[in-house]
């Protein structure tokens, strides 16, 4: 079956979903992890995302019109994460429990300093307004381009470009000179 062509049977739908799942499991998990800050909740969120995606997969295929489905998947995770905090009256955890770089082996002082800098960046990401934080996660953890991020966030390409630019500048300011972040408003 050619990519973009609609599946003609239930078996083809299942095969396409399996392909989507295998291709994007790491994306959804990474996004979930950086949203909720720990592996346990990230697993929950990832499972819920794919279960919900499976329920609406056929419609999504029809409506995508051949476009990639990753933004749609991430949007599901995004909505579920919002519900996750609302239902459980939680806030994202202030620190990431152990991102890859934190558990990476190191041997020299410069590497330790580098790790501290990366940790400062991660802490800063967690303190950003929601929309800026999400845009950064999509760009840098998932490698999504502006158009994909725009689709996932339901914004225009131009607004997304501005959002990313502001998020990076704000974070750079926070890391170079740690201050309270109330001044950096959301781009809603």
């Amino acid at each position: 079956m050619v990519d973009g062509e609609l599946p003609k049977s239930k078996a083809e739908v299942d095969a396409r979903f399996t392909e989507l799942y295998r291709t994007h499991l790491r994306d959804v998990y990474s996004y979930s992890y950086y949203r909720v800050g720990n592996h346990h909740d990230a697993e929950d969120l990832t499972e819920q995302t794919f279960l919900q995606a499976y329920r609406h997969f056929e419609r999504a295929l029809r409506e995508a019109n051949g476009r990639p489905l990753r933004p749609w998947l991430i949007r599901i995770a995004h909505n579920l994460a919002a519900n996750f905090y609302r239902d459980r009256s939680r806030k994202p955890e202030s620190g990431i429990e152990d991102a890859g770089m934190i558990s990476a082996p190191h041997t020299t002082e410069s590497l330790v300093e580098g790790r501290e800098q990366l940790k400062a960046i991660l802490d800063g990401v967690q303190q950003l307004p929601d929309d800026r934080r999400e845009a950064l996660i999509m760009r840098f953890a998932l490698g999504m381009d502006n158009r994909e991020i725009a689709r996932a966030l339901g914004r225009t390409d131009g607004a997304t470009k501005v959002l990313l630019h502001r998020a990076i500048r704000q974070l750079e300011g926070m890391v170079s000179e740690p201050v309270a972040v109330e001044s950096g408003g959301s781009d809603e």
Partner: protein
Amino acid sequence: MSSGAADFEALLREALSPVEPPADMAQRLELTLVNLTELAQEELDAWELKAMRDPRNWVRPAAAAVVGVSAGTALVLLRVRARHRVRKQRSQNALDLAQRTLHDVGEEARRILPRRR
């Protein structure tokens, strides 16, 4: 883009490196999805299941009994599921389909699990 900005973006890319999902989570999720696709098989409704109960309910206990809750379960079910249409075409009736499915589960378990241990 200035080199400072590029450097910061490189740091950001490093800090937000992709996170691999735990292996057992991938397997568990795959198994859940396989079960869901089995449940979604509405065509089975046409097989006059009332008389002999739903064979889908036979498969899971049988699969569990044969393969246990092992790392190979998802793979067994995936392979059994992949041949569902062939079995259905060859079956005379619902009982025959159920027997063929049980047979396939056993065969796949025997074929796959010893290699994985």
